[in-house]
């Protein structure tokens, strides 16, 4: 990419300042939650969330929605964690934050489709990471998956016209969205996502994931994590959590360079039954559809704040 293009992207991303900003509680929350579940202090989370009344209220409403089938709606974040577990509450909190930064509007890419893919990828990353090693950083993988495509939201905000053409081309020809971005815009969501991630001062490894998940070989700082997200992204797109159109290509994971990187890191991968893993992934799909519908307002049980 040329220097001038990089500058253009940076400038446009800087101007997103006027757009809905990420809630102040998001980054500290992210930092807190990227620790393993056992290490996360419930009190810290509760204290943090209490600074943002909107997020706390929205989180409680989602937690009390029919989706989770609790007989009584939780009255505090602490109660929600006790009934639903830290992981579910964490998912709800991060989703609510991101939902506030990028509220559902009619964009080039339907935000509900976008968040389904992001949450799906987060879940697959965590599952994959847990399968590969007991001591691995499953929470980090979850957050990396959640944020990997954040550049698409930047495109919707800062390059709306060009990106609309890219989305049209992709769905018309059934090609991957990043290929269509290259063809129509000359850059992809990886570049715009990287600019936003740097502006938000996200951790280095997350920036690396956002910048290189379509070209793992260019990754510098966190190659195994980038490879993990790359593979999970492909799996999601093949298992009903893609971008809402039919991608006309086959995915041969074992022949993918990212697979070789993961194999180097985790010898156990050799013994993994990929077919069974694929079938198991389908198990979380329903909950993701319901969660996104609840947070982003298409569910009747919840009015948007």
């Amino acid at each position, binding site marked *: 990419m040329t220097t001038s293009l990089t500058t253009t992207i940076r400038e446009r991303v800087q101007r997103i300042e006027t757009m809905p900003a990420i809630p102040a509680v998001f980054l500290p929350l992210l930092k807190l939650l990227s620790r393993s579940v056992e290490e996360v202090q419930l009190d810290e989370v509760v204290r943090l969330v209490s600074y943002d009344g909107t997020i706390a209220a929205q989180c409680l409403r989602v937690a009390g929605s029919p989706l989770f089938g609790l007989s009584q709606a939780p009255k505090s974040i602490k109660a929600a964690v006790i009934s639903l577990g830290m992981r579910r509450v964490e998912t709800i909190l991060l989703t609510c934050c991101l939902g506030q930064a990028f509220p559902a509007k009619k964009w080039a890419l339907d935000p509900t489709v976008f968040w389904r893919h992001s949450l799906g990828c987060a879940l697959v990353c965590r599952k994959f990471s847990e399968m590969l090693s007991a001591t691995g950083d499953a929470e980090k993988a979850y957050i990396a998956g959640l944020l990997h495509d954040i550049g698409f939201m930047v495109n919707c905000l800062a390059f709306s016209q060009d990106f609309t053409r890219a989305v049209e081309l992709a769905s018309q020809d059934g090609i991957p969205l990043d290929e269509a971005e290259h063809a129509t815009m000359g850059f992809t969501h990886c570049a715009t996502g990287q600019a936003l991630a740097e502006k938000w001062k996200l951790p280095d490894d997350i920036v690396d994931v956002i910048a290189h998940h379509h070209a793992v070989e260019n990754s510098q700082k966190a190659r195994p994590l980038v490879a993990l997200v790359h593979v999970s992204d492909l799996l999601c797109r093949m298992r009903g959590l893609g971008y809402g159109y*039919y991608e006309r290509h086959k995915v041969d*994971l074992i022949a993918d360079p990212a697979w070789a990187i993961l194999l180097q890191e985790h010898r156990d991968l050799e*013994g993994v039954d990929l077919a*069974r893993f694929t*079938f198991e992934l389908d*198990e979380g799909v329903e909950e993701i559809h319901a969660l996104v519908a609840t947070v982003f307002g298409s569910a009747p049980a919840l009015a948007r704040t």
Partner: protein
Amino acid sequence: MTTIIQPAIARPALNKTPETVDPVYRQIRDLVYKISGIYKAEEKLYLLADGCARRMKQLNARTPREYWDRLTAAPSRDAELRELLNEITIGETCLFRSQPQLDALRKVILPELVAEKARQITKRLRIWSAGCSTGEESYTLAMNMLEESDRLLKGWTVEILATDLNDRSVETAKAGIYGDYALRNTSDLYKRKYFSTVDEKKLQVRPEAKKLITFSRLNLQDDSKMLFMKGMDLIFCCNVLIYFDGASKSKVINHFFSNLSFGGYFFLGTSESLMKLNEQFHLVHFPGTIAYWKPSLSSGKL
């Protein structure tokens, strides 16, 4: 063609949460997978539970735990597992059973095969429906190929070989007469185009689709006959290998690998897997479905 794209994943009611399922069913699910390669995902566990319930009634087993004992203790276990597999796959016998497989076939695989084989003198595709039972899958394939005959497959010859162990099934398949249940996924468009009316309740496949298919009896475990099945571009073998023991399964799969041309594909049933019985095939993903690929010579991935 029909443009109905079915969701890759069925949507169960959310109230069937995993917590409400007796943990024994997860044990049964794992046993069924280990022996047959059929995997019922958590959200489809109730289908497995329904199948078990029907078997439990037959056997007068009072609890899932009691049924587990029947499934695992000699001498009943092999026969009982077979009965259970019948129960959980019975609903899958119909035309247009798996739209994701058909989409992969028409949107990705056919264009790829046609491009790969374009330089060959005879433009011919060979498809094998191995364990075709009463012919539903074979006719579905024939109709889908006919849909492409004026476009992608213009100037191509398509041969579909449909084989089954059971003579009676083969005879039923040849007749090509189906009722509502077998036709529940078949669109009106296809019904009008490829079927004639037999009576109020039954339709028969028209000669146009029939003539693409050769039905015959074949035992997949007959090694000498299996060696003759050469030059296949596609093999479909859905819910057949689930009844084979590990060694026989391995043997048949190795045959299939040889039976396929380079660049050919092998499809199993929608929730069925080869587990890790063959490392030569590449497991590949398409939207909503998986298949096994014998890499083409040009791909350099052999």
